[in-house]
C-alpha cells in the first residue's frame, strides 16, 4: 500500500509548521489555544495551536507539530489549512471522515484523522477555557 499523492504532498511540504512561542508563552497568551493529543508510546503526538481573534472568534492562524507517521503529519497539516479563517464554532464541526476522504487514508490510518479532529477540539477547548467560554462536550463522529 503506497501513500496517496495528497499525503505525500503534505508530508513533503507540510503547511503551517510551528508554534506561537514557547510552551510557557503559549500557556499565558489568551488568544492562543493549544491542543496536544496522543502519546509517544502510541506512536503519535499531535500538537495543534490556534491563534484566535477574541472579538470574532475567527481562527486567524494555526500551527502544528507532529510526532507520527506520514498520514499523521499530513492530517494535522491539512487540519491547519482547513480551520484557518473559520470561526471556532465552524472548526469544531470538522469531522475526521472529511480528512480521511481528502487524503484517501486507508483503514489502518483512520486513527490519524481522529487525532487531528481531536487536536482541533482540544485547542478550541483550551482557548475557551482561557477565555471563560462554556464548553459543551461533543460526541465523536467516529
Amino acid at each position, binding site marked *: 500500500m503506497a501513500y496517496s499523492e495528497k499525503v505525500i504532498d503534505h508530508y513533503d511540504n507540510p503547511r503551517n509548521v510551528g508554534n506561537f512561542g514557547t510552551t510557557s508563552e503559549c500557556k499565558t497568551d489568551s488568544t492562543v489555544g493549544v491542543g496536544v493529543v496522543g502519546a509517544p508510546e502510541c506512536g503519535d503526538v499531535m500538537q495543534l495551536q490556534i491563534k484566535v481573534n477574541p472579538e470574532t472568534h475567527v481562527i486567524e492562524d494555526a500551527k502544528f507539530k507532529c*510526532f507520527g*507517521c506520514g498520514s499523521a503529519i499530513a492530517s494535522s497539516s491539512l487540519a491547519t489549512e482547513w480551520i484557518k479563517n473559520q470561526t471556532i464554532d465552524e472548526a469544531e464541526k470538522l469531522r475526521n471522515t472529511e480528512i480521511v476522504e481528502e487524503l484517501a487514508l486507508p483503514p489502518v490510518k483512520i486513527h490519524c484523522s481522529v487525532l487531528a479532529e481531536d487536536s482541533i477540539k482540544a485547542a478550541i477547548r483550551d482557548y475557551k477555557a482561557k477565555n471563560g467560554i462554556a464548553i459543551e462536550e461533543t460526541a465523536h463522529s467516529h
Partner: protein
Amino acid sequence: MPINLPIYFDNAATTRCDPRVVEAMLPYFTEKFGNPGSRNHKFGWDSEEAVDIARGQIADLIGSSPKEIVFTSGSTEANNLAIKGAAEMYAKKPEGETGRGHIISAIHEHKAVIDPVKRLEKRGFDVTMLTPGADGLITAAMVKDAMRDDTILCSIMWANNELGTINEVPQIGKVVRDAGAVMHTDATQWVGKMPTNVVEDNIDLLSLSGHKMYGPKGVGALYVRRRRPRIRLVAQIEGGGQERGYRSGTLNVPGIVGLGMACEICSKEMDSERERLLKMRQRLESTLADSIDVTQINGHADKRLPHVTNISFGFVEGEGLMMAVKNIACSSGSACTSASLEPSYVLKALGVGDDLAHSSLRLSLGRFNTEEEVDFAIGNIQEAVRKLRELSPLFDMHNEGIDISTIEWATH
C-alpha cells in the same frame, strides 16, 4: 558506480535472489520439469537427482548429512513442523490432558516460533517464555535456570531478525541436550551468513529459509538430526510420504535447486562478505551516532550479525522516518509485523522505552549493497531526522528541558 534508488537496506526482510541462483533454477521449469516422485522415467530421475544435489549443498553449509534435510515451504513451516512435530512426538501425556511436557522459548522470538508455542500451551503443554537481557541476548544460564524435569523442547533463535543479536545457541544446545530434551533453533537470519555446524553447535532441529540468503521465496528446510539421538517428529503436512514422511507434497524442484545453489554460494562467499558488511555497518552506525544526538543502537554492541543494525532516533517516529528516507527501503519493526501499529514487541522485550521503540529503523545490508549506498543513506537519514525533529513537538519539549517521560499524556 551510479546508485539505483531506492537503495535496498531491508535484507533481513527478504533478499534479492542471486542471478546465479535464478540461472540454476531455470531449466527445472520448462526442461527438467519432472516430478521427483515419478520413479519410472527420465523426467522423474532428472528431478530427483537435482533434489539430491541440493540436499548435499544445504548439508554442506550446515555440517549435516544430506539425509537430515527435510524440505519445507520456508522457515515458518519449518518452525511449525519442528515445534509442533517434536512436542507431539515427545509429549508425556495424550491429547486432551494437561502436563504434557515443558517447552522453553523466548518472548522476542519470531511469531513463527511464538505462535506454535502458544498453540501448544493451549494443547496442554507448559511453556516458559524467557525475557532477554537489555542487550537482547538469551544465555545458556537463563535456559539452565528454566529447565525442569519434564522439559521436552527448547526453541531459541540463533540471530534475532529485528536486532541481529546472537543468542548463545551452541551453549544452550549443550544444556538442553545434556538434559535429554530437544534443541530447536530458528536460524533463518543466521544460516548462510555465519558459520554453522549442527554437530558442534549442539542442534537437533534447525530452520532455514531460501529468501533470506539470496535464494528463492517459498522454499526452506528443516534439519532433523538422525543420530545421537535420532529425532523424530509427527508430520504436520501429511499424504504422499515425501521427505521420509516428515513433509508430504510434490517437491518444489526449481525452488529446491535454487536453495541449494544459494547455500553453495553462501558457503563460498560467506567469509569475505561478512567482513565487507561489518565494515559498512560500522561506518553507518558510527557516523549516524556521532552526527545525530539522542540516538541509540539497540541490542548487544558486538554479539550481533555483521549486517544488521537497529537504531532509535529520539523524538521522531519510525514510520514517518521511513517515509522521509524514501530513497532507502528499510523497516521499522520487522517487515512481518509492521502491518500493526504496536511498537515492536522485540524492542519492548529489551526494555526499550515506548518512545524510542517507536523511533527505530532497522537497516539490514546485503550482498548487493555498496559503500556508495551506505554513504548516500547516511546523508539521507541525517537530513530526514533533522526535518522530522523540526516537526516534532517532542523535540521542542526536549529542547525546552521538559522530561517527556513525566508528562501525563491525554491518550486517545
